[in-house]
């Protein structure tokens, strides 16, 4: 692999190309097993290998990729990347500026696994999914059940013309169950451990076993059915307590994406959008209440956003983003950090596989726990709503106006969790919402969630990121029910 990387770099460094890096992924493997209503609807195994070459002139980048690992393909791909950079350079006179960070010349990183999910027998995996899925069908109103498992593993070799080199092998797994109960046009879904495929981590099959899907299935099915008869939540501003999984999604959408430096620099303006955070805001913007502490930490063990080195070759870092409610840092790359005068890159450049160019990506963007138990959070609430497990999410292109729906909600009455509510939605504006957070759950309520489906970039890339979140309480949040 090293020879092929050298071949690519040598071919790239021609005629105006001042630097290059190359990544080989060989192989990238994925497995997706899904059982719906007793029948496998997806049993898929995927393997791929290839090379991505990124180059730069004094003014512009170029990236080319090929799904073939031969010297001639490497040379041709490198030349194509160079041609792209030269063509792109015609559109600007501004020089590219990068931080001076360069990674180690021989780094290694590997996920810590007890049971390699690709070595575990498929019979065992399918038996677990089949049993868990069967457990969802507790009532005739459960019209559909699904249990699914996903695993990815990627062996990667990286080398840059600036002397950085590393090899890594990262494995991610996850699983979940979902029951769909239907009566007339009313459709209720309930999932565990959370929605959209469940929970994910950088771990082995032991992670899936620990999710205990079989034991959870019965309650999931019953809750889906019970939700069919639940009333809509009372409409209006109220006290909202968010469960850990929904708070993780809230962090993802309204803090994670908003603090990506490339969005702030408008590099994503045409697609995902920009940010309400401005280039001059670091160190002074009040993002939320003083209880808000956010850290982007790529070094957390087991996180979907953990790695040894980013795709610019830099070692993983822990970057404070919000401290006591004030914005203090950003997710950044060598280029975006230089443009924003951040000093050093946040080492957050990651690409999907070999076939996409690195982008600024969330790592594990975590909300630090506070010191309240869940019952303490509820104690002070005479009338409010508790919500968990995302059902729908939408936010504007500056990450300000958001509206999220959840699968599950309960009224809070006199400091205790009360009856179920159906189709709950809450919405607001990012700084107002985070400013209204007046209590944060303690470490016992904190969980590091894996989000395997973060879309960004053109051509599209799916990123896998992590979010640690406790439960938390927010005052005066607008809540209502869908379809009222």
């Amino acid at each position, binding site marked *: 692999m090293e020879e092929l990387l050298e071949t690519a770099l040598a071919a790239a460094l021609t005629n105006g190309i001042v630097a290059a890096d190359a990544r080989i992924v060989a192989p990238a493997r994925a497995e997706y097993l899904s059982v719906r209503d007793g029948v496998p609807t997806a049993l898929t*195994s*995927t393997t791929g290998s290839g090379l991505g070459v990124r180059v730069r002139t004094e003014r512009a980048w170029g990236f080319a990729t090929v799904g073939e690992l031969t010297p001639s393909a490497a040379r041709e791909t490198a030349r194509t990347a160079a041609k792209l950079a030269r063509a792109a350079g015609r*559109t600007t006179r501004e020089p590219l500026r990068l931080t001076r960070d360069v990674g180690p010349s021989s780094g290694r990183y590997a996920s810590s696994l007890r049971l390699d999910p690709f070595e575990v027998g*498929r019979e065992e995996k399918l038996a677990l999914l089949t049993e868990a899925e069967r457990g969802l069908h507790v009532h005739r109103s459960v019209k559909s059940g699904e249990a699914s498992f996903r695993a990815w593993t990627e062996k990667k070799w990286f080398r840059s013309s600036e002397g950085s080199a590393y090899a890594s092998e990262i494995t991610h797994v996850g699983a979940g169950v979902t029951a769909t109960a239907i009566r007339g046009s009313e459709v209720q879904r309930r999932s565990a451990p959370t929605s959209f495929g469940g929970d994910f981590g950088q771990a082995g099959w032991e992670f899936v076993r620990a999710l205990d899907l079989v034991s959870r299935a019965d309650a999931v099915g019953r809750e889906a059915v019970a939700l069919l008869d639940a009333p809509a939540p009372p409409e209006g501003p109220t006290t909202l307590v968010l469960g850990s999984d929904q708070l993780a999604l809230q962090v993802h959408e309204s803090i994670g994406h908003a603090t990506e430096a490339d969005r702030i620099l408008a590099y994503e*303006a045409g697609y995902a959008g920009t940010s309400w955070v401005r280039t001059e805001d670091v160190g002074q913007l009040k993002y939320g209440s003083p209880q808000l502490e956010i850290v982007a930490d790529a070094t957390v063990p087991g996180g979907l956003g953990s790695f040894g080195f980013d795709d610019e070759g830099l070692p993983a870092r822990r970057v404070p983003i919000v401290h006591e409610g004030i914005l203090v840092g950003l997710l950044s790359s060598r280029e975006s950090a230089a443009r924003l005068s951040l000093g050093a890159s946040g080492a957050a450049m990651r690409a999907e596989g070999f076939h996409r160019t690195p982008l600024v990506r969330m790592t594990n963007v975590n909300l630090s726990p506070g010191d309240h138990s869940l019952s303490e959070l509820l104690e002070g609430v005479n009338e409010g709503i508790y919500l968990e497990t995302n059902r729908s999410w939408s936010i504007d292109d500056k990450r300000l106006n958001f509206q999220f*729906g959840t699968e599950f909600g309960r009224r809070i009455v006199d400091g205790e969790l009360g009856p179920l509510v159906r189709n709950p939605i809450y*919405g607001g504006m990012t700084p107002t919402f985070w400013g209204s957070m007046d209590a944060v759950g303690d470490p016992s309520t904190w969980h590091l969630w894996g989000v395997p489906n973060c879309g960004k970039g053109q051509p599209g890339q799916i990123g896998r990121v992590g979010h640690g979140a406790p439960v938390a309480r927010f005052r005066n949040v607008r809540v209502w029910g869908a379809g009222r």
Partner: protein
Amino acid sequence: MIPASEARTILDRLFDRLPANATADARLYSSGWGTMRFAVGRIHQPHAEKLRGASLRVVLDKKVATATSGDLTPAGLRALAEDALALARAAPEDPKFPQFPGGSRSSTIDFSAATASLPIDRQARIAENILAGASSPDFPVRVAGVLSTGYEQWHVGNTSGRFTSTRRSIVGANVLVERLDLDPPGSGWSERAVWDHRALDGEALGREAADRVPRVRPGTAKPGKYRVLLDGPASAKLVGELAYLGFGGRGWEEGWSCLRGRMGKRAVAPILSIRDDATSPLSLPQGIDFEGTAKRRTPLLDGGVVRGPVTDLRSASRLGRPLTGHAPSPEAPGGEYGAIPTQLILTSTDQGSWEELVKEVRTGLLVTRFHYVRTVHAGRSIITGMTRDGTYRIERGEVTEPVVNLRFTQSVLGALSTALLVGKARRCYTGEDDRGNSSVSAGPLALGDFRFTSATVF
């Protein structure tokens, strides 16, 4: 691209590796793409890729499994067959999985070899033309967008003797023009997707987005119900949402489709018809689906009346419905929506010019496009999202002032039930999918009732 003769040999090799009691279908694909992504007025992320691969779905004693691989060497194909078989052996039975059909027909479609292999310099030149067209002499702007161009080709074979092929050429572009000297800032948008790059005028596309940029500071608009004129991108997005919520085979199987139980009944305004037609040059043509079924015109809504879901082999068998040729890519088998329409075309008996559409709305809002649209309640077709890049007030039958963006929460069927008039000028839109795996060919759409639930500050 992979020549048909080579493809047939590779697929035969794959099938030869299967035991006698196995049946299978397989896909062999190749693609080449160039992407010129631009932001802050320059090309900042140019990208080129060449990929090939194969996927094999085997049925072994009623057990079904799929494996895919990017390795087309003999060793790679051997590993692919072994992987699929091993997975199938472990699988629970799927007793209703149908037999693979024979027949090797591919619909005749338009294709541009020049578009499929557009040189890098030519791609960059089109992007430069877009940037030039978007630069207004009247006020400072920030320009971003993308040009994607390339081809996809796939061959499909199965153990019932099918061997068929298709290829598609695509160029899609969009451009955002932001005016930052206003507070709140304003922006304009334009997009277009075609199968032949000669139909794309980059400079005109850029100019069109610049023309939509507000000339004065956007005002406020209160949330509430409005008559709306959805310009092409917004109209296409609304129609496209029905692909998932209404016409997907899986939604009909499981009972959560918003159109289930409404077969033969009116679901939207009688002036609207929607069909799926990947053979039409109005769409991004492809001759077959990923199971090798020939593409054809499939009516979905006819004069507002529901004509049924689309299907692939599996859902057709389960629903007892005709096979329509909408098998999804093997990378997304049995995904949340299963078979879904991918090349929608909106037509209407009542069509008008832009001026007539604005007059029809009389008092309301003009929406250029939607952002971050998500399902709130599938069974009731309720979605939410934001307006973006050009929201204007319509008063006395004229477009007057720009307004800040609004969030809508609205039933798709409810909105389409109030359709008043459809624009004559249509265009093919791919929205967020710059590879054109799905598209909607539509004109602007005037609606009598659309609910906005909150506003943002820009």
